[in-house]
């Protein structure tokens, strides 16, 4: 199997301006003073054999799109080399070059020629393109009257009909309605069957597991993990869980302050990845410089869709402090984690009993992942004991 794409030790650095000098005057007076270099990609090597699908995952700003743009030839690397074989079509460019004043038909021809299709080739595929985009009634309407969904559908339809050897896809499946998304996935599966090479950037880990033969995890421009999609996706979740601790949003009067908080696993070590059924402890260290009357400590857990999954507080659990002063430690022990696989966000708060007065609130500041060990589907994890006997 020959390599369709060979990336060898490439690096790409950008100059980051606090504010870009885009006029001569700024350029002269601010001579490079407010610029700093940073490497968006460093020492990245990857080979994509012909006919395989590579998934690129990583947090925002990890260099996924930069890598894709280097492969597409849009950006020039500062180090290393990239060798590609055959026509590349990039779905970075859904509807790129669509002009609002032109009709759908005119834009199809323009866009197709930008992506490298000749007029005759476009003629031959025109009906397929319009059919795929589901826009036969609007094809002679100016694109400025299209809804954003129609716009993207037409862009996708053109892009997948240019007959590329290599297809670069950047986070485009998050568009359109569900039915159209399925259609796009079908098209990708068809490309795979036809033996085309695909490089695929996404934030949706389950898509990676479903579609990719090989997966690359990037962080801060470097390859962190590479290999079997499910394993790399797990690494990705771990990475996100660790990094997310740095984020957060605090509010409140701080009359009682959350000094630190930790999530414990069953063995007592602070971790962010659990399995269904684990014993999980949420521990808060609190401090009140002056006495506070009757505070309540609470937590709430949200899932990835921001749905409130579960929460409770010290008041409901029968723990009260008529006078709260100095340092205290509070532990919520969740005896049995009933969650299925996924990511969960924890909000912690200290407030007055009537909730009117917030002392300290950390909204969805803590993150943990639940990784399924088995393949039981559903919304909650219920420990099941199977009893079978012959009657």
């Amino acid at each position, binding site marked *: 199997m020959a390599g369709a794409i060979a990336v060898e030790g*490439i*690096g790409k650095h*950008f100059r980051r301006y606090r504010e870009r000098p*885009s*006029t*001569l*005057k700024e*350029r002269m007076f601010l001579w490079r003073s407010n610029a700093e270099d940073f490497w968006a990609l460093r020492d990245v090597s990857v080979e994509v054999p012909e006919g395989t699908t590579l998934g690129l995952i990583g947090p925002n700003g990890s260099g996924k799109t930069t890598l894709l*743009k*280097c492969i*597409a*030839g*849009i*950006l*020039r*690397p*500062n*180090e*290393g*080399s*990239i*060798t*590609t*074989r*055959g*026509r*590349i079509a*990039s779905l*970075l*460019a859904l509807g*790129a*070059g669509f*002009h609002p*004043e*032109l009709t759908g038909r*005119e834009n199809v*021809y*323009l866009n197709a*020629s*930008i*992506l*490298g299709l*000749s*007029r*005759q*080739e476009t003629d031959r595929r025109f009906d397929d393109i319009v059919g795929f985009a589901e826009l036969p009634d609007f094809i002679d309407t*100016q694109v400025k009257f299209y809804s954003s969904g129609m716009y993207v559908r037409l862009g996708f339809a053109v892009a997948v009909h240019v007959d590329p*050897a290599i297809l670069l896809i950047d986070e485009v499946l998050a568009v359109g309605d569900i039915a159209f998304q399925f259609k796009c996935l079908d098209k990708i599966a068809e490309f795979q069957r036809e033996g085309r090479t695909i490089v695929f950037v996404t934030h949706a880990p389950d898509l990676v597991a479903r579609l990719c033969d090989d997966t690359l995890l990037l962080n801060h421009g470097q390859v962190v993990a590479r290999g079997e999609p499910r394993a790399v996706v797990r690494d990705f979740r771990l990475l996100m869980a660790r990094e997310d601790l740095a984020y957060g949003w605090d509010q409140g009067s701080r009359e009682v302050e959350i000094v630190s908080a930790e999530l414990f696993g069953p063995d007592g070590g602070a971790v962010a990845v659990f399995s269904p059924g684990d014993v999980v402890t949420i521990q808060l260290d609190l401090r009140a410089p002056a006495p506070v009357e009757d505070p309540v400590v609470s937590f709430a857990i949200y899932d990835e869709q921001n749905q409130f999954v579960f929460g409770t507080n010290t008041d409901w659990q029968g723990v009260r402090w008529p006078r709260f002063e100095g340092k205290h430690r509070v532990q919520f022990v969740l005896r049995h984690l009933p969650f299925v696989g996924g990511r969960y966000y924890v909000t912690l708060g200290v407030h007055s009993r009537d909730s009117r007065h917030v002392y300290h609130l950390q909204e969805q500041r803590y993150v943990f992942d639940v990784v399924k060990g088995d393949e039981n589907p559903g919304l909650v994890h219920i420990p099941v004991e199977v009893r079978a006997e012959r009657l």
Partner: protein
Amino acid sequence: MAEIPADLTVRTSEPPKLRVLPRLRELWADRQLLGNLVRKEVSVKYKSSVLGVAWSMLNPIMYLLIFSLVFAVVLKGGIPNYSVYLLSGLLAWNFFSTALTMDARSVVENANLVTKVYFPREILPLASTGAAGVDFLLQAIVLAVFMAAYRHVHVGLNLLLLPISLVALAAFTMAVGLVVASLNVRYRDTQHLLNLLLLVWFWSTPVVYASGRVFVSHKSILGVSVFHLFLANPLADVVFGFQRALYGDVGPASSPILPAVSVGWLAVLLGVVALVSLALLWLAWRWFFRLSGDFAEDL
């Protein structure tokens, strides 16, 4: 470009070096894209307008009205068939200024393409220049109508100057166009500076006033005669060529309308201008090509 065999493309950190012939082949392969972009420029310009392409023809007619009034009536310019004279020079000038104004914005205005799709970047200023070429043809029709109306046609060797002038004009315009297009990516001052420069340049080119006056002027600046100074302006040379080919009337020796030089002399001059412009075009192309690798980053 239907069948590209399993070809290898290698990209490295080296700034790309222009190799003219392979690059020309690449551009040739993308000729349909160029055609589509020219068509887009032209049709977008006139979409949703009632008069459409007529606007392109109205521009020279407006110039004609204004300058006829100023020169023929107020200043008593004394150029017979002034409209043919003016339009023949204006034809070359309008191509130059329209193309440059569009070229300067060509890359910047297509930022959404440049940052998302790979294609030879030269296509963008080429398409803008091509759209200016369409304008050129429309304005040539206006000129032809006036030539026919005044029955002012000089058929002779002078017509040979037209193709040479055209080559010189196209090469020079494209050379400057590539420079302003790439400069404007980094410094948006370029398009504003260009507008000012074009204003000065317009009046330094004998389009509205008699080019023969320049020829007979005895004034000199720093020891160089005015005529020689004008010769150093490639656009003035091109305009001399257009006027001689299309207007053709040199006028009386005492106060000539056109420079009283032979057609052969002009042909040599324009040949030199064309060669120099082609050399400039090569340099400008190399410069553009070198910078074009980083356009996506700078936009």
